[in-house]
């Protein structure tokens, strides 16, 4: 028991030491990398389809200054994103927000692939069953041409060898 208690305390101490000094970071000047971290997931409203972190226009420079100002006030990434969405609409986000109507954007392609897979599987199975029926019929009549035998070890390769012999 003592072993576990000491272990737990030790673990907690280590975890505590590992915790990033979150609130303290706000005191230091905001670096460009911190600004870009947030700007990367926002899109410039003026120049279409350009992420904010690489857009060279004046408007985007002002936006990055805004991000910097908000970061130095200690705002979180989500709060800053929210600020821009409220002001300029959902199109500033890199992807449609996963809520409301926009859920379709995410669900539909995944759903289509899944449903497609189900239908595709059924279709293949159907083809298989048809074939089984045919085969029973075939064996009953026993006159139908036999399907080609399952390829023995590398039919293709023996063909390659044959080519060499011939040519």
């Amino acid at each position: 028991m003592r072993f576990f208690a000491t272990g737990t305390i030790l673990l907690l101490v280590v975890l505590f030491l590992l915790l990033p000094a979150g609130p303290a970071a706000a005191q230091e000047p905001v670096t460009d990398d911190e600004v870009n971290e947030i700007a990367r997931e926002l899109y410039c409203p003026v120049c279409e389809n350009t992420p904010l972190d690489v857009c060279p226009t004046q408007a985007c420079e002002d936006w990055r200054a805004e991000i910097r100002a908000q970061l130095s006030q200690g705002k979180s990434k989500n709060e800053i994103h929210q600020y821009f969405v409220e002001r300029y609409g959902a199109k500033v986000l890199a992807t449609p927000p996963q809520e409301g109507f926009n859920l379709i954007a995410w669900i539909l392609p995944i759903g289509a692939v899944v449903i497609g897979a189900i239908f595709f599987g059924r279709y293949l199975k159907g083809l298989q069953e048809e074939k089984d029926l045919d085969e029973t019929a075939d064996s009953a009549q026993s006159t139908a041409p036999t399907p080609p035998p399952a390829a023995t070890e590398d039919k293709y390769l023996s063909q390659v060898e044959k080519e060499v012999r011939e040519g």
Partner: protein
Amino acid sequence: MIADLGFAAILIALLVALYAAIASVYGAQKDDARWAESGRNAIAIIFPLLLLASGLLISLLLRNDFSVRYVANVTSTEMPTYLKITALWGGQAGSLLFWNLLLSGFTAAAMLRKWDDQRELMPYAILVASITQIFFLALVVFVENPFARSAVIPAEGQGLNPLLRHPGMIIHPPMLYLGFTGFTIPYAFAMAALITGKLDDGWIRTTRRWTLVAWLFLSLGLILGGRWAYDVLGWGGYWAWDPVENASFIPWLAGTAFLHSVMIQEKRNMFKVWNMVLVVLTYLLVIYGTFIVRSGVISSVHSFAQSAVGPLFFGFLGIMLVFSAYWLLRRRDELASPNQLESLFSREAAFLFNNFVFLGILFATFWGTNYPIISELFTGERVTVGPPFYNSVNGPLFLILLLLMGVAPLTMWYRSSLKRIGMAARWPALGALGGVAIAFTIGVQSWGALLGLWVIAFSFILTVLEFWKGTRARMNRGESAWSAFSNLMGRNRRRYGGYWIHLGVLVMAFGIVGSYFFQQETQIRLQEGETARLGNYEMTFNGVRQFPGPDDLLIKEADLAISYNGNYVRDLTPRTELYTRTGQPMTIPSTRSTISEDFYVIMVSWENITATAATFRLYLNPLINWVWGGGFIFIFGTLIAAWPDPVEEKVSAATRARRRVRTQPAA
């Protein structure tokens, strides 16, 4: 005068295209070879007419004849000569003319080659190709006339869009356009087969060959576009899932699916309807892609200026959709196949699975590209669908494709045993696991990356083994190693060309995994003499030079000394260029490239008031050169597969001769 002559040429070309359509169908209906041949001759004349028109437009561009509106829009007096020539495709009207030119070239080549071979199909193939040609010619004659006059003659032209002033302009757009227009030919032959009801193997051979040609150009266009983006767009990447990139990628996906599934038809005479659907889909997606790029309905960095062509494209797309669907439905029963799928573990099933995944990626990409319109329609709010969407939806599907690439060649036609596939895949799977273990010990911790690397290594080993098995089989018959290897490829171009393409894709995938999962970047403001660090690189800022460039350019170039592991390697000179007339800035990165990574620097800003500090963006892009290297292998493989095969040609000539002898008494 020149402009009038140019307009006359495109007007005549339009009339000739109309005549070609009517004459060839009339000839086919009346079974009159003279009318059909007259239709063929007419379609062959369009190409020289459009060559003349394009030549005239180029001469106007070279003479800076700003009385022509298009010339004033895309050139300026001081622009370098090569850019003046490429300005032919630098704006809406000119590039539509260029599109017409390439389409007519393809059509002429396709109709003159092997005319005797496909006599029944040709008139209708001409009809379908000329319908497309008529639509695009009508656009340049009535809507976007490149020879139209300016109302007021400006003293100086606006010059080409700065983003297009790059040597990439010489080759990237022509390749892409060749790919796009080229897909009209397989569509024309497929529709001709549907209309005439001649659904034997003739159309599929012609269609496959032309699809491969168009596909080669489109692939080249896509790869070159990625390289261009990397060189000038200044965000350290090569593919952004931008709507216009998607617009050319989507038809590529459909074409790739077709190139795979067509093999089932050739070997097993199955899935004919499906192959028709894929040919039609590819063509419609080409038209759709052109519509997206040119109408401005979806915003993109590539967009042309707002234009009236949007609704016309939409209408044309609808007509071609109905036209294709009608004939497909009408011939549905004739296309049905008597053969069945023998096993789920067969080559044909593997190809079907491949098609399923390709269409999955196609659908997801199409959906993402169009979702902003859908959302605006239903909620009134526009949204952005950016790279994170495509990466998360398409990423897993691409992984499945890469896996199939390795496993599918192990399967046999008709059926193969799961046990045998397992035996053949066992050692490569373990070998790939060893490779992943090495990657793990050198610090690759991301699960996604490790999984990707395993699949890539696995499929790579299996593909190389395919070459090895074939070569060994020939060596067993007494050939030397080299001649066994080269004869193997020479005798089976499509198969081994395909494997080379697979190897190219796998090498590209390796580069993509590296640059996607392990890109590092930082942005920093440096005073003169200060040093920044990223990875093993150090970069010392030694000041900025400012000097005028050609035309109205003002260039600011930073001088950076780069060292790697503490040793000086070279200077890098990222720059910003300002087009002073329009005030448009460009950021040109500077890169140190090695096989393992690129150190890529952009100058973000330079405060020239103090003139001693500048802000830089530094990227470390691991393995990115593998993307380009893989691209070379890819194109090499496509050339092997597309090169006319003397053996195949001889065989098909012999079959044709036999068929002719057989059918003669009946006729």
